[in-house]
């Protein structure tokens, strides 16, 4: 085939509209008679609502409606949670708070007005009286008996307990050479902070009884089903459109109260209703990520071989469940052994209610926590044994060619951890870095070198293992003009699949890249779908499109062969033609498309039209892997850290467009660096949110990061015919431990908690400077 597109660096189809400011995000949608909604929210972490006075708000200029929980009762369902597990306690989660508020930012009253300024004014005039109640913020305290309860009816704050056991612990316990490291690791709470906050426009047409919703979402089809269930509007009459979505990182893989209330208000008032989240609302009321406490025990032998891992995971749920809240930490035990052959594992996971916003999927969603645990464990073993962290890792890698079935019960697809490690050591010039480190140490300068060799689970996933379906749909339709429409049930929001999916189809059909247009995000256009998350879009959604394109090709081959009076097996597709091998007879692609619709000379048994939909059900997850090296300088006077170099070698399976892969890796590394260095979402002991604006919650700025040197290896997966693994989360998963390992290395300590603020580093420096002082 002459048209080679897969594997090529091809500029994005998405960009021309976005670089000219001509894309349409939710807030850019304007409808006639559109009303605006604002919320009065809880200022307290835990309080009883004693009274709500809405008269002033109702009488404020431009106000059309003021809604409290009583107005919704029996008419709008609660915020849904799709995760189910044995013994799970699922809190009642009304869209507007009923008798109690349980976290700062919880919506209590909705105000709808003719203008967004007037809606905001009126929301400030809603008078809500609260009786403050003791709140619980710390998970350690929340699990104690007699703790303040987030939900009194549950009797305790434990949402679930989950136990994972594997291997023969007796051999570990009976081996007297085995040593143990006990360490508490804290995976702090983070804010996803997509640059576009959430937003929704709901438009109910009373005559037609139809609901159209534009929402900044990663899962339009799931949202459509859930909004139908919440509002009682018949699902065929509901349509959800995800327009341009300005970043999400998991935070828009959800169904939120505000979406439900907007639909309810639109139906009640018969007018379109828009709600656009403010940044303070975003930090308080959009899901948070991570927030685990990991009490870890690492069992290892004097040669560096790790023989067992025990961990108690406390996973902060927040006060209520969002769509996947309790499911997220269950990925952590599955991936806790990383890419190492560790024979024994024992992990207890406890989901804990606290008076905070719900946690849910945030870039990596349970797996960065696992990688942080195991990669810190490897470095702690190296620290205790005074070994090079490279040697500890290679000692624990599974033997080459060995089937990678783990004590956790997980079987990885394909891997070559030595290959990525060797490559990153080469591009980082690791031995020279170690020599430089020695030289600088003699001068009193602190240079740290940190390594992480990660494996992650992605391409979510087989439906049997997913809370709400793991398949994805793809439609390829050749139009009568010969141009090609591609529809994906995935819902990318910056990842660039309008480009990579067009590459797949154009190559398969031997037509120009520009002849293919990819759409996604509109449930009225795309028949069915799951969405974009869990690094699944190309591996699962791309495969669906690839197979649909193959079916189109087969059908077009039949029509063309009939016309050329040859066998279908003897034709090839190339440069916009379908021709007999050797080229003696040919017909244009366009002509065959036209023929399919005119339907006058179709071969017997061939249906008119050229549209194929395929739904791909992946047989397994995929397991991308890689090796990262971070180099950090620590200012010994101020404790300030400078990330000096960063090297990443990632293997995400087959690469369809190297530019897009690099973009995902780079962005991912930045987010992982954010967790390691600056990000920290903090509630005080009264459950007051202390980091409620971008003044207080830091995300990486352009000068935080050094030049990232990235490279790849390509180990194809057998899980899908494209051989693609997925790359959306890899960078984030690999980078956090690499950076923390580098700083611990610089300081010569076993452990230091994130984020690595100068204050924290300075305290360690001060401690270790004291005579006989040993930090951590």
């Amino acid at each position, binding site marked *: 085939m002459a048209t080679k597109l897969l594997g090529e660096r091809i*500029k*994005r189809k*998405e*960009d*021309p509209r*976005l*670089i*000219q*400011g*001509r*894309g*349409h*995000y939710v*807030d*850019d949608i304007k409808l006639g008679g559109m009303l605006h909604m604002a919320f009065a929210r809880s200022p307290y972490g835990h309080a009883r609502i004693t009274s709500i006075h809405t008269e002033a708000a109702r009488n404020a200029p431009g106000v059309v409606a003021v809604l409290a929980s009583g107005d919704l009762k029996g008419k709008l369902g609660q915020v849904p949670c799709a995760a189910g597990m044995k013994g799970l306690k699922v809190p009642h989660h009304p869209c507007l708070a009923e008798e109690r508020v349980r976290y700062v930012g919880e919506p209590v009253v909705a105000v709808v007005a003719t203008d*967004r*300024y007037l809606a905001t004014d009126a929301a400030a005039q809603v008078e809500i009286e609260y009786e403050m109640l003791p709140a619980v913020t710390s998970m350690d305290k929340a699990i104690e008996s007699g703790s303040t309860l987030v939900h009194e009816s549950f009797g305790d704050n434990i949402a679930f307990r989950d136990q994972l056991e594997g291997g023969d612990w007796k051999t570990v316990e009976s081996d007297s050479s085995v040593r143990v490291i006990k360490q508490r690791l804290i995976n702090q709470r983070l804010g996803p*902070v*997509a*640059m*576009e*906050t959430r937003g929704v426009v709901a438009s109910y047409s009373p005559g037609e009884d139809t609901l159209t919703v534009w929402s900044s979402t990663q899962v339009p089809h799931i949202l459509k089903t859930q909004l139908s269930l919440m509002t009682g509007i018949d699902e065929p009459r509901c349509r959800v459109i995800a327009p*341009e*979505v*300005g*970043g999400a*990182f998991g935070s828009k893989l959800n169904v939120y109260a505000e979406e439900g209330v907007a639909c309810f208000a639109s139906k009640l008032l018969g007018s379109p209703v828009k709600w*656009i989240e*403010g*940044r303070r609302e975003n930090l308080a009321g959009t899901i948070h990520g991570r927030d685990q406490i990991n009490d870890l025990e690492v069992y290892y032998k004097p040669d560096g071989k790790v023989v067992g891992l025990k961990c108690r995971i406390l996973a902060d749920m927040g006060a209520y469940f969002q769509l996947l809240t309790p499911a997220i930490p269950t990925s952590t035990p599955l991936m806790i052994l990383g890419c190492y052959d560790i024979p024994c594992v024992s992990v207890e996971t406890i989901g804990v209610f606290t008076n905070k916003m719900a946690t849910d999927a945030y870039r990596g969603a349970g797996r960065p926590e696992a990688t942080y645990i195991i990669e810190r464990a490897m470095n702690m073993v190296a620290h205790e044994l005074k070994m090079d962290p490279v040697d500890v890792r290679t000692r624990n890698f599974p033997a080459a060619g060995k089937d990678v079935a783990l004590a956790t019960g997980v079987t990885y697809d394909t891997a070559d951890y030595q290959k990525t490690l060797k490559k990153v050591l080469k591009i980082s010039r690791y031995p020279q870095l170690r020599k430089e480190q020695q030289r600088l140490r003699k001068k009193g300068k602190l240079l740290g070198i940190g390594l992480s060799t990660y494996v992650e689970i992605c391409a979510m996933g087989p439906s049997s293992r997913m809370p709400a379906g793991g398949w994805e749909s793809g439609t390829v339709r050749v139009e009568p003009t010969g141009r090609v429409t591609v529809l994906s049930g995935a819902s990318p*929001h*910056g*990842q*660039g699949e309008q480009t990579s999916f067009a590459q797949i189809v154009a190559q398969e059909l031997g037509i120009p890249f520009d002849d293919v247009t990819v759409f996604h995000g509109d449930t009225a256009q795309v028949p069915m779908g799951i969405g974009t998350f869990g690094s699944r879009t190309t591996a699962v959604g791309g495969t669906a499109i690839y197979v649909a394109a193959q079916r189109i090709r087969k059908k077009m081959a039949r029509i063309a062969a009939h016309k050329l009076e040859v066998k279908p097996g003897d034709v090839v597709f190339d440069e916009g033609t379908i021709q007999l091998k050797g080229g003696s007879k040919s017909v244009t692609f366009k002509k065959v498309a036209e023929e399919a619709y005119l339907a006058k000379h179709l071969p017997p048994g061939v249906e008119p039209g050229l549209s194929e939909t395929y739904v791909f059900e992946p047989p397994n997850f995929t397991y991308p892997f890689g090796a990262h090296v971070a180099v950090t300088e620590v200012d010994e006077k101020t404790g300030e850290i400078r990330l000096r170099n960063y090297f990443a070698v990632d293997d995400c399976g087959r690469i369809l467009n190297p*530019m*897009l892969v*690099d*973009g995902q890796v*780079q*962005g*991912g*590394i*930045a*987010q992982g660096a954010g967790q390691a260095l600056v990000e920290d979402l903090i509630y005080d002991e009264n459950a007051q949110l202390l980091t409620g*604006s*971008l*003044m207080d919650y830091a*995300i*990486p*700025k*352009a*000068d935080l*990061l050094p*030049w*990232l040197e990235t490279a790849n290896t390509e180990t194809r997966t057998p899980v899908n015919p494209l051989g693609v693994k997925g790359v959306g989360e890899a*960078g984030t998963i690999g980078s956090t431990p690499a950076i923390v390992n580098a700083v611990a290395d610089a300081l010569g300590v076993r452990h230091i908690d994130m984020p690595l603020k100068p204050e924290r580093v300075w305290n360690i420096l001060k401690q270790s400077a004291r005579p006989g002082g040993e930090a951590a």
Partner: protein
Amino acid sequence: MKVRIRLNGNWREDDVEPRMLLVHYLREVAGLTGTHIGCETSLCGACTVLLNGDAAKSCTIFAVQADGAEITTIEGLGTDGNLHPLQQGFWEEHGLHCGFCTPGMILAAHQLLGRNPHPAREEIRHALEGNLCRCTGYQHIVKAIEWAVEHSGDRQAHQAAAAQAATTEPALKR
């Protein structure tokens, strides 16, 4: 209150509430939705526009403060077939994913190159400190700006063409 603003080369006059933010004026009154709102507190830079040639965060300026001023938004920079080198650079070098920060990022970069036509990488990063991007990790944005620097000849040609176009525009549009 009446405001008279030269927006992307065209003068226009509008009646606005005194408290209306410039960004809402641009988006809601003038209908130019390429300028985005990411934080409403001038911390993220998504709303950056050029105000009399300087990068300014339009979410913390009242529309009435821009009375008599010249404003350039992303829509006024370049269009299909005649993209500004910065826009082209962002396309060539994968300087955007979701595109939400992009208009502000491009206009912040525009100010940088106006003041320093050949910035070092550190200078580019420093100049972008007021603009947050959550998708790219910034490196490809830096490369996009470097691309624009390398193609500054094209930019001058573009500016000459744009200046000529502006003088032939009708002076006041009501």
